[in-house]
């Protein structure tokens, strides 16, 4: 009995139960998150989608222990988010690349490794391996401002991967990029997910992006921030951008759009 329950624990990377988060502001309480129940299993690609103010970024930050929930429970790798953060259980990719301007690309990717206290050789190995994963070989000695926005964001993904986390948390990483670059990076991210088998939690407000990338789409709605519906997707793992023309893709996109519409009251 005990063995089987620990086995199922291993399967689920994130367990969220009746989670809520209330901010106190000058105008009173803001219910950023309420009654969130969500289980994310190992190897899943989960998108959190919703209009602004629905708490999708807040939820991601709770998982990352950058925000503290005011109610309910959450386990990350069967630990509290704080313990998980202390053990560096996840890699986090922010909306902006957040590269340190005084560090070269290689040293930016190496930043978490320095903090983890890895030896030089291991750092070097991981830096070149992960820069190769995001197709940034040859840019090691460049400074961030010498790279385009898309390349900077790829460098920040390499930096998150360098920690070698099983869990990747991404907060609208491609939101600031133009659509062509975005499509390209979406495809690369999908390849990366396929290759590394990591668990990804991905925040976005783009329906095509969510449907294209995800194995599970969590539709959220605002005031209070809550989960409206969870849509499973069975698109093949080795899909390409062409899949966006297929009926299957359009059906899922339609379902997501309906969910967003129902969850979002237009009266206010």
């Amino acid at each position: 009995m005990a063995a089987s329950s620990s086995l199922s624990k291993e399967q689920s990377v994130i367990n969220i139960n009746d989670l809520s988060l209330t901010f106190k502001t000058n105008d009173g309480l803001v219910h950023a998150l309420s009654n969130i129940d969500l289980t994310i299993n190992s190897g899943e690609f989960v998108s959190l989608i919703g209009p602004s103010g629905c708490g999708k970024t807040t939820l991601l930050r709770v998982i990352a222990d950058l925000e503290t929930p005011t109610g309910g429970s959450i386990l990350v790798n069967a630990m509290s988010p704080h313990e998980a953060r202390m053990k560096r259980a996840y890699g986090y990719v922010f909306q902006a690349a957040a590269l340190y301007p005084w560090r070269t690309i290689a040293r930016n990717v190496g930043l978490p490794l320095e903090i983890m206290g890895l030896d030089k050789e291991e750092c070097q190995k991981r830096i070149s391996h992960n820069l190769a994963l995001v197709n940034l070989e040859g840019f090691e000695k460049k400074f961030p401002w010498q790279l385009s926005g898309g390349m900077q964001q790829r460098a920040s993904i390499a930096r998150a991967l360098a920690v070698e986390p099983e869990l990747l948390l991404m907060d609208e990483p491609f939101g600031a990029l133009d659509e062509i670059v975005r499509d390209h990076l979406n495809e690369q991210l999908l390849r990366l997910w396929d290759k590394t088998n990591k668990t990804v939690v991905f925040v976005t407000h783009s329906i095509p992006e969510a449907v294209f990338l995800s194995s599970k789409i969590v539709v959220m709605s605002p005031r209070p921030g809550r989960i409206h519906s969870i849509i499973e997707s069975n698109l093949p793992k080795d899909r390409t951008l062409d899949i966006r023309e297929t009926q299957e893709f359009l059906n899922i996109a339609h379902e997501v759009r309906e969910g967003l519409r129902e969850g979002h009251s237009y009266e206010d």
Partner: protein
Amino acid sequence: MRGNVNIFPLLCVLTGIIVIWYASAIYMNAPFQRDVYQRAKTQWTTTQLIGDTLAQKRPVLPAPHQVAEEIYKTTFLKKVTSKRSLIYHSGITFSSTILGFIIGVVLGIALAVGIVHNKALDKSLMPWVISSQTIPILAIAPMIIVVLNAVGIQGLLPKAFISTYLSFFPVVVGMVKGLRSPEIIHLDLMRTYSATQWDVFWKLRWPSSMPFLFTSMKVAIAAALVGAIVGELPTGAVAGLGARLLAGSYYGQTIQIWSALFMAALLAGTLVALVGIANRMVLKRMGMAA
């Protein structure tokens, strides 16, 4: 090409200043000269008057060429070790400026680090830091010299402490701002790595604060020079640009005063430029040179 464009307005201003200066020198020195003529009962022409006003021994306002000549005589024609060499006096002032500046920068950074990392220090220290600068330095300088002398500290250090007193302030203010300058997203990133305060300081706060440090050091080094000169003024110092100014005013040697003033300005300009060069070198190494 760009150099030419930039130097033209500079030359215009310089020419303007020299013209105004000569005119003022003639105007201000003329009454004394007329007095001299009257007493000697000599006939004089305007040309003669102008020539003589620009060649007085103790003019109210020395002419530019008199100051230039004095500077030339007391720098190039005197041995560096001579008490009459301006280089010698500048060197004295320079050494206490630099010593005071270095102590001031270290002290300023230390205070800023404390203020940024400790709420109690932030609340308790900052008002003192600010009020320290409301006391006129001229009033406190002799006290510092006397008090330090009483505890057996003499020579370069007391003067340097006056420089420190003036130069730590811009460094504290600049570095508090600099160490708090990292963006939230950069701090959040450190949190996701569960980085220690030590790592956050050395890998994020310290490098972020570099532009602020150099800007405040430019202000601080000029203030340190003022401090060193002020330290030499009321304390009976026998050497240094301040002592030179004081001696000049005792004996009405206006030419000597003005040449000491110019050396001080030149020294200040050189020091600020040196900080500027260090600034560019460091920021270039950090890939942030503008």
